[in-house]
């Protein structure tokens, strides 16, 4: 898009890059904020239906679809309270830390082939690393609130997140191994084609490890049945007991943003990313199968695909939340250390052996060679143009790869 602005409209390059970066940031922010509005409404409706109620019905006419907006206005108008003994600076800062971590991770998340805020060649690693920072906000909130409920919640969250990062990391490594790349765009691109090319259906081990990933993801975003940090039947509201108004809503936006993010990551890593179950675009002849030449509409379709998969993941999380009872802290730890970690390790070894002995799958010739990237590197070709030597300072390095839909 930046090239388009420079060449067609004739904007100077720095302005074009800045404009593109601003548009990307705006869109991502709206995915989180707008998504949170929709998801909160959906959660209320789903919870109500599961509990045989109606949920919100009045605000905004049918189905109460404006309920979240009304809630938002109410939250804006609420008084911003702070306990007497609280550590003022940390108390005020904590919600923003949580939200920023959640927001930052979206930067590297690809929505369609070129629709990615910043294409990092270590995208998976970046997302997992940044997502782990969200817990800082929770711990700071728990500490700064000067409340025992909050502190308990924060300590539980710390123990939980530190433990669950281990199996989560192991699960994430499997698609990386299959694709031969840590680039999220490359990983999703390798699953193009029919449903059977998705990594979840790659072999039995990846099918199992997808569910392990999903369990760990639910735990790492602090959702029921792993929502010990805010166990409302024991700790009032856990780490956000003392928060009200807009600051409280920042925690919630961060939570819903993270839910969407881990679901989208699951979609990219295991469920084919923006590739639909049926390659409609290439069947209809809109594109020749390679994403580089795909027209605008195909990329929009890809966006819708990925968002749909991620939304489905979030809805399943809600379903789980209103179905399963909360685990005790020792049960949470047992689930992580005695079940998730060993299963993930075994499946990891299994996938490795599968790649060694059955690299083509059970039906020979039915799928792409998974290790093509490595061979390409060994032959010195590289699957991407490796290094356009950009002198420092010509373009800000961070916006060098900010690409919208380039035409």
């Amino acid at each position: 898009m930046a090239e388009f602005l420079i060449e067609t409209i004739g904007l100077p390059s720095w302005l074009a890059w800045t404009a593109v970066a601003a548009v990307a940031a705006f869109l991502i922010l709206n995915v989180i904020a707008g998504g949170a509005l929709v998801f909160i409404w959906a959660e209320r409706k789903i919870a109500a239906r599961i509990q045989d109620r109606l949920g919100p019905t009045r605000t905004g006419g049918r189905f109460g679809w404006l309920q979240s907006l009304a809630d938002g206005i109410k939250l804006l108008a609420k008084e911003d309270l702070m306990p007497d003994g609280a550590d003022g600076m940390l108390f005020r800062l904590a919600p923003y830390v949580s939200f920023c971590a959640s927001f930052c991770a979206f930067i590297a998340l690809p929505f369609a082939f070129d629709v990615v805020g910043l294409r990092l060649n270590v995208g998976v690693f970046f997302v997992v690393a940044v997502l782990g920072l969200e817990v800082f906000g929770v711990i700071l909130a728990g500490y700064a609130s000067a409340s025992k409920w909050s502190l308990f919640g924060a300590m539980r969250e710390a123990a939980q997140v530190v433990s669950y990062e281990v199996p989560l990391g192991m699960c994430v490594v499997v698609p990386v191994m299959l694709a031969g790349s840590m680039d999220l765009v490359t990983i999703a691109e390798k699953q193009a084609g029919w449903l059977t090319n998705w990594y979840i259906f790659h072999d039995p081990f990846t099918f199992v490890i997808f569910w392990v990933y999903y369990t760990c993801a639910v735990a790492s975003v602090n959702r029921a049945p792993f929502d010990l940090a805010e166990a409302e039947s024991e700790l009032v509201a856990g780490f956000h007991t003392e928060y009200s108004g807009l600051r409280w809503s920042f925690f919630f936006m961060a939570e819903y943003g993270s839910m969407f993010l881990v679901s989208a990551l699951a979609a990219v890593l295991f469920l084919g990313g923006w590739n639909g179950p049926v390659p409609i675009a290439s069947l209809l002849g809109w594109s020749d199968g390679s994403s580089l030449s795909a027209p605008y509409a195909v990329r929009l379709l890809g966006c819708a695909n990925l968002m749909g998969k991620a939304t489905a993941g979030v809805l399943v999380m809600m379903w789980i939340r209103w179905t399963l009872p909360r685990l005790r802290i020792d049960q949470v730890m047992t689930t992580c250390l005695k079940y998730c970690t060993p299963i993930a390790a075994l499946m990891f070894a299994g996938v490795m052996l599968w790649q060694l002995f059955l690299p083509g799958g059970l039906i020979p010739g039915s799928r792409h060679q998974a290790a093509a990237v490595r061979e390409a590197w060994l032959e010195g070709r590289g699957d991407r143009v490796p290094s356009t030597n950009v002198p420092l300072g010509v373009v800000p390095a961070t916006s060098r790869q900010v690409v919208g839909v380039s035409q």
Partner: protein
Amino acid sequence: MTECLLAATTWLLPFAAIDWHGLFFLLFAAIACGAAIMVVLTDNVVRMALHLVLSLGATAGLFFLAGSEFVGAMQLMIYVGGTLVLLVFGVMLTAQTQLVSLRTPAADRVLAGILAAALFAVLVQSAVSVEAWRRPGRAEVSAPTATPLGMALVGVRVDGDAAGHESRPLSGYLLPFEIVSVHLLVVLIGAAYLARAKRRRTPRAVELVASVDPPPPVQARSEAGESASVLVGGGR
């Protein structure tokens, strides 16, 4: 229309002259240094940890700015993530009131100052002595990738051509990598061994009472007290 757009943006023209890369470098560097100083000056452990997170995070930003995304993500994962544990310890420590604020004695401050100055001098000296950094103009960087590093770790060097060592194939880092990972495994097992709950076979209260035959009064009382404390303590 294009002219209108350009005319509307003429007031922005001075911004075009700004070296954005340099600006962001200065911004991140200032955050890193300022937060590092705040770590030293703050006396609250949790705030110290927060400033440390800021400082290390800004350093990660510098790595991203330099285009080395792998190192930047590593910095976030290992250092910033590791500070999380530090933060937890900070919270646990400050639960006791005497540790809420840590004051450094003046003698320690002087000692730390001398040490820091010496380290700084060494770093500056070695940084200045790098030939390529003293040339005028800008160094050219190639967009790096984690793939050569990963390949080198499994024993295959794909960066040989770039470095000009075509005659002699470079050796990978498979052996050091394996040694380090085995070392880490040993450390993990050792930590688990040291931290495990020390379980002693303590007879249950019923067995204890039954085994005392006949009970000397003093000993029986002490044993009863012991078994009661074991029960209360939840030991098995």
